[in-house]
């Protein structure tokens, strides 16, 4: 719908109102009040209804995608102003129109839940500071860095988004202290720590390979062998020298089949004919597992987890 036709605003309908208009505010606030009423209404729900209520919400959300899948996708109208052929076509059009809206819902709800995560973080560290538990000083460091990043981050965004119609702040020579601080905290420290932590993996790979790649059993031996072949093929110098050797052999013997023994060829063959199918087999299994789990969650059959 509007996402595809970005320039043309959608026609007015029951569902929308002009931007920032008083009617829109009324509708929005009304909806929130209605939602809150539902919220408090639900606190009086009897115990035996609790599970069915949750299940209904889950089922309806899943139903959208299942129906979207089962109703034939409508063909795009050739020109504006076409009427749907029949109810199925109309439903198809409705589903594909509603898709971009529904697709946002999960992300928006998860975003609202983020507050809970931050609340967990704050409780733990404020409690540490209050009780002067071990390392409470570091908890203060955490809170201070959080507040700094939050403050400068928002100030920077507001300046760039709303106070800078000419786009001057795109150029770093026009930056104020706030922009610099935000950049320093994010780009100078946070991103660098990301990269540093990421690169630690290289050290761990070395020690893990050292411990694990032993000729103990068939399994660990094939694991090691295929890893070694791949690594050798990635060393350009080794691959080059190896290739030169094979070339000499081919010229010497006249047997072109030997070309297949070049390390890059061997590595590629290993990847396409052994790695790819092995992984595909795992993926099939995982896909079926996810499908089965999806059905159980959708129909409320899953115990223990969410709908119990």
């Amino acid at each position, binding site marked *: 719908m509007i996402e595809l036709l970005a320039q*043309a605003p*959608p*026609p007015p*309908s*029951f569902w929308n109102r002009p931007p920032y208009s008083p009617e829109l505010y009324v509708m929005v606030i009304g909806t929130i009040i209605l939602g809150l009423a539902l919220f408090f209404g639900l606190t009086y729900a009897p115990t035996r209804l609790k599970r069915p209520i949750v299940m209904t919400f889950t089922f309806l959300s899943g139903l959208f995608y299942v129906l*979207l*899948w*089962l109703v*034939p*996708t409508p063909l795009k*109208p050739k020109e*504006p*102003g*076409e*009427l*749907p*052929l029949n109810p199925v076509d109309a439903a198809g059009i*409705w589903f594909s*129109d509603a898709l971009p809206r529904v697709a946002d819902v999960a992300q928006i709800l*998860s975003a609202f*839940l*983020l*507050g*809970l*995560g*931050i609340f*967990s*973080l704050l*409780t733990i560290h404020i*409690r540490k500071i209050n009780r002067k538990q071990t390392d409470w000083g570091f908890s203060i460091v955490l809170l201070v860095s959080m507040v700094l990043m939050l403050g400068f981050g928002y100030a920077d965004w507001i300046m760039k988004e709303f106070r800078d119609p000419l786009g001057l702040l795109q150029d770093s020579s026009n930056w104020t202290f706030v922009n610099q601080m935000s950049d320093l905290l994010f780009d100078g420290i946070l991103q660098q*720590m*990301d990269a540093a*932590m*990421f690169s630690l*993996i290289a050290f*761990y790979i070395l*020690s*893990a*390979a050292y*411990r*694990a*790649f032993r000729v103990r059993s068939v399994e660990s031996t094939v*694991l090691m062998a295929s890893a070694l072949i791949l690594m050798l093929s990635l060393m350009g110098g080794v691959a080059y020298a190896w290739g030169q050797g094979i070339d000499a052999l081919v010229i010497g013997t006249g047997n072109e089949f030997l070309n297949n023994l070049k390390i890059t060829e061997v590595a590629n063959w290993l990847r396409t004919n052994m790695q790819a199918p092995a992984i595909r*087999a*795992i*993926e099939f*299994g*995982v896909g*079926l*597992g*996810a*499908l*089965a*789990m*999806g*059905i159980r969650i959708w129909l409320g059959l899953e*115990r*223990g*987890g969410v709908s*119990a």
Partner: protein
Amino acid sequence: MQYLDTGPFGILVTLMMVAFVLINIFRAKGSKGLYIRRIAGLNAIDDAIGRATEMGRPVLMVPGIGGLDAVSVQAINIFAQVTKTAAQFTTPIRLCCADAAVYTVAQEVIRDVYQKEGMSDRYDSTSVQFVSDRQFAFAAGVSGMILRDKAAATFFLGAFFAESLIFAETANAVGAIQVAGSTQTSQTPFFIAACDYVLIGDEFYAASAYLTREPVLVGSLVGQDWGKLAIICMILLGFVTMSAERLQITNEARVDDPDKGTSKIVSVAEATKDQFRERRKRASDTVVHRIFNPIRTEEALDIKREKDPNFVPPATNGAEGNGTEAAGGGA
């Protein structure tokens, strides 16, 4: 993008898989003790917790860094079993989350476990914590925690990415027993290299059925196996027909038009001179290929809808409007 792209075959196969799962769930409800093969990694759980108890050190669980989906829910289901055992031994637990929604579920489930075991007083809400939703900040935080608390047993089950090895090696450095499993195949080798027990691929989804032996889960697992057998059969069948068909000579070929999304069969007689001639069948000429990629002719895509008489052309877009109104009526 469904019917016209995949044709009815895709829908049928999917529905068949769904049916397999549902049939077996109902079948399992009636009978008891369906067979599940041994999964080594899961038998190790009790030993690991026992060892943590002896050493008086905590058990650490991480459900990966994915958002709230089946992987995270499944991880938490397994952790609920781990926590149950840990609660009986009164071993302290830590559960670190990287997603607020997952944290919410974990908090709820773990508290439930303590309640059901009648140990609500031992439950500490900070033992389930949200660490960070930024991948490497989470990695730094959790490895700091492993090193400081000297966790005796660690469970890394869920969607792990590059951070997998950071956790596994750190935990290895403090001498923890590790049970790990990721549905991300790209990370499994690192777990294999660094951990004591690894759940490979689908074993992860089988875990809760294996641990709880609940009829619904076991039945679903049997259904999945039926699905797997069906896929194996499909592959073998295709493998045979494909092999046979590639030996045949064809005088017609399929020509795809990616712009319109249509295709048609063109015979040698109709083909332009250098388009193609009689030749052996290629993969795209085989019956199997046509079943998987049904042909959409131009006629099929040529649907004529009637014009809306009330439609006002310039500023608005009628099809959209109708769609939205249909929404009002339908909902």
